[in-house]
């Protein structure tokens, strides 16, 4: 009995989400192909960013907003390639190359700060994100086009310096997603896609039971798979082992001679660099760089998705990432329309979505705290000897 309860309790957050989704999906009235398409897009778009959170969690640095710094670095890389007019895959790779050193420097800075705020990483990095956001905005709004050479008039405000609010990333839009065009199609919709790809060849599969068609961002998924392999490999390295050790007990790791602070900084640097790549992948899918806001919610949404996937502050797996992306974004897709169809007013749909989505993030955090308390209780129970079982 207790075991069943434990299983439910340990997966309470995903369970709540699955239940709500089960009600919301039929209410929304969306077709299966639309939902699958949207989910695939969002897996491709967001999972890299979320995966970048895993390594700091492994090193015991909790859910960490340091990744926001990486996202900013990625955006700076993108701004440069937009200015130079580098397009396609070379453009994306070059943006990564430019973003990497910036992400490393920001990561080292962030790591040093977090080493001074051990145990309060989540809040510290959140505030640090604001601080760096200020620096970023100053750089982009005042230095670019003035000290940092940006010449493209479609990027600059007409006053001559400062980058515009929205930068179109047409040059690299969907470039990775459509690198290996793959389409699953039912009986309909084939003709349209042939048209879009302008006669280029693509992989096509036909599933008779499917209505409509689904494009699969195959190359993006391959990149994400490679990243997952990287994480699995990384866990097996000495560095990964050290991070796991630090994550479980800093003092023990320290007395064993593991350079705790340095390793923590490395963890953050890896996270920011990966977040930098993640943001580039995210934005190549979005197609527009919202210069001053794109990175804003990157951290918050990634962390929320990870929590909803069943991860905790101290433990997160690759499976959590994917479960989280699917559940969190499923909610985001269906909740507004489900709310609207339920109540009949369009704006109620939006409020319903906000209420449900953020409410559940709050529940996730509360449940998480509750779970941690339970674990602590359980750990104590073992100390109480045989008389303590009541």
């Amino acid at each position, binding site marked *: 009995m207790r075991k069943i309860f434990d299983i439910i309790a340990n997966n309470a957050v995903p369970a709540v989400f699955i239940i709500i989704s089960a009600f919301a999906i039929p209410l929304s009235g969306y077709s299966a192909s639309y939902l699958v398409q949207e989910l695939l897009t969002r897996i491709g778009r967001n999972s890299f960013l979320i995966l970048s959170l895993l390594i700091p969690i492994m090193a015991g640095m909790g859910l960490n907003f340091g990744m926001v710094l990486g996202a900013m670095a990625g955006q700076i890389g993108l701004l440069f390639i937009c200015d130079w*007019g*580098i*397009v396609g895959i*070379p453009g994306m*790779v070059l943006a990564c190359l*430019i973003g990497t050193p910036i992400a490393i420097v920001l990561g080292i800075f962030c790591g040093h700060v977090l080493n001074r705020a051990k145990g309060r990483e989540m809040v510290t990095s959140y505030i640090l994100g604001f601080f760096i956001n200020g620096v970023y905005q100053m750089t982009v709004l005042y230095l670019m086009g003035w000290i940092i050479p940006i010449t493209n008039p479609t990027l600059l405000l007409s006053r001559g310096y400062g980058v515009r609010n929205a930068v179109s990333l047409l040059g690299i839009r969907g470039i990775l997603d459509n690198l290996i065009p793959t389409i699953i199609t039912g009986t309909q919709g084939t003709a349209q896609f042939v048209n879009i790809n302008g006669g280029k060849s693509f992989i096509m599969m036909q599933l008779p039971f499917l209505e409509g068609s689904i494009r699969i961002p195959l190359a993006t998924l391959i990149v994400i798979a490679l990243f997952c392999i990287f994480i699995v490999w990384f866990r097996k390295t000495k560095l990964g082992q050290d991070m796991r050790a630090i994550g479980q007990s800093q003092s023990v790791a320290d007395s064993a001679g593991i350079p705790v602070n340095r390793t923590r900084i490395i963890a953050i640097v890896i996270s920011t660099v990966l977040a930098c790549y993640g943001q580039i992948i995210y934005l190549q899918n979005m197609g527009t760089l919202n210069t001053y806001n794109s990175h804003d919610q990157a951290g918050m949404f990634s962390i929320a998705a990870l929590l909803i996937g069943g991860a905790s502050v101290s433990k997160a797996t690759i499976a959590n990432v994917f479960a989280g992306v699917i559940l969190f974004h499923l909610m985001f897709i269906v909740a507004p329309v489900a709310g609207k169809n339920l109540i009949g007013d369009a704006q109620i749909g939006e409020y319903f979505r906000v209420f449900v989505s953020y409410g559940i993030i709050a529940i996730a955090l509360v449940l998480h705290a509750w779970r941690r308390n339970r674990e602590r209780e359980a750990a104590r129970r073992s100390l109480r000897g045989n008389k303590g079982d009541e």
Partner: protein
Amino acid sequence: MTMFNEYWEIVRTFLDAYGVSYELAGLIVLVLIWLLLFLGRGLSFFRFLMRWYQRLIIVTGLVALGFWLFYVGREHQILLDNKNVNGLKALEQVNVSINGGESAELMPGDRDMRKAVGPEFEVKAEILDDNGEVVSTITKTVKIGCVKNMTISLPALAAGSEDFTLPLK
């Protein structure tokens, strides 16, 4: 060696584009080397050498990759110009496509713009007469390098001149 020259060419255009002097570039390279040495401190000589050496190769490789990406990924605006130049009369009608893309229809005095990616592109011009019949087709591969914009004078191209980019020399 040609490879090297080509790279040097890219680096030079890049440096020139941003007004970076060669001395400064050299200084940056020296600082990078120093940084590598600095990172290798505290290691035995052999390992230090290995690390230094390998890191240098990696960083150089990455920088070279960056320049190469810049080279192959750059998008150029190709302005197609059908106006009278140097005594050459504008063409009656010409359909131009770049790298087999959507073709532009130009009447005398027209100017249109197409985009091309990479250091060279293929321009295909179909010259039409008054009746809309194709008189001749010219296909040419143009090297553009890292230059951002290029204007092609179609009358000059049609005349078979090698010097068809505006402004004409």
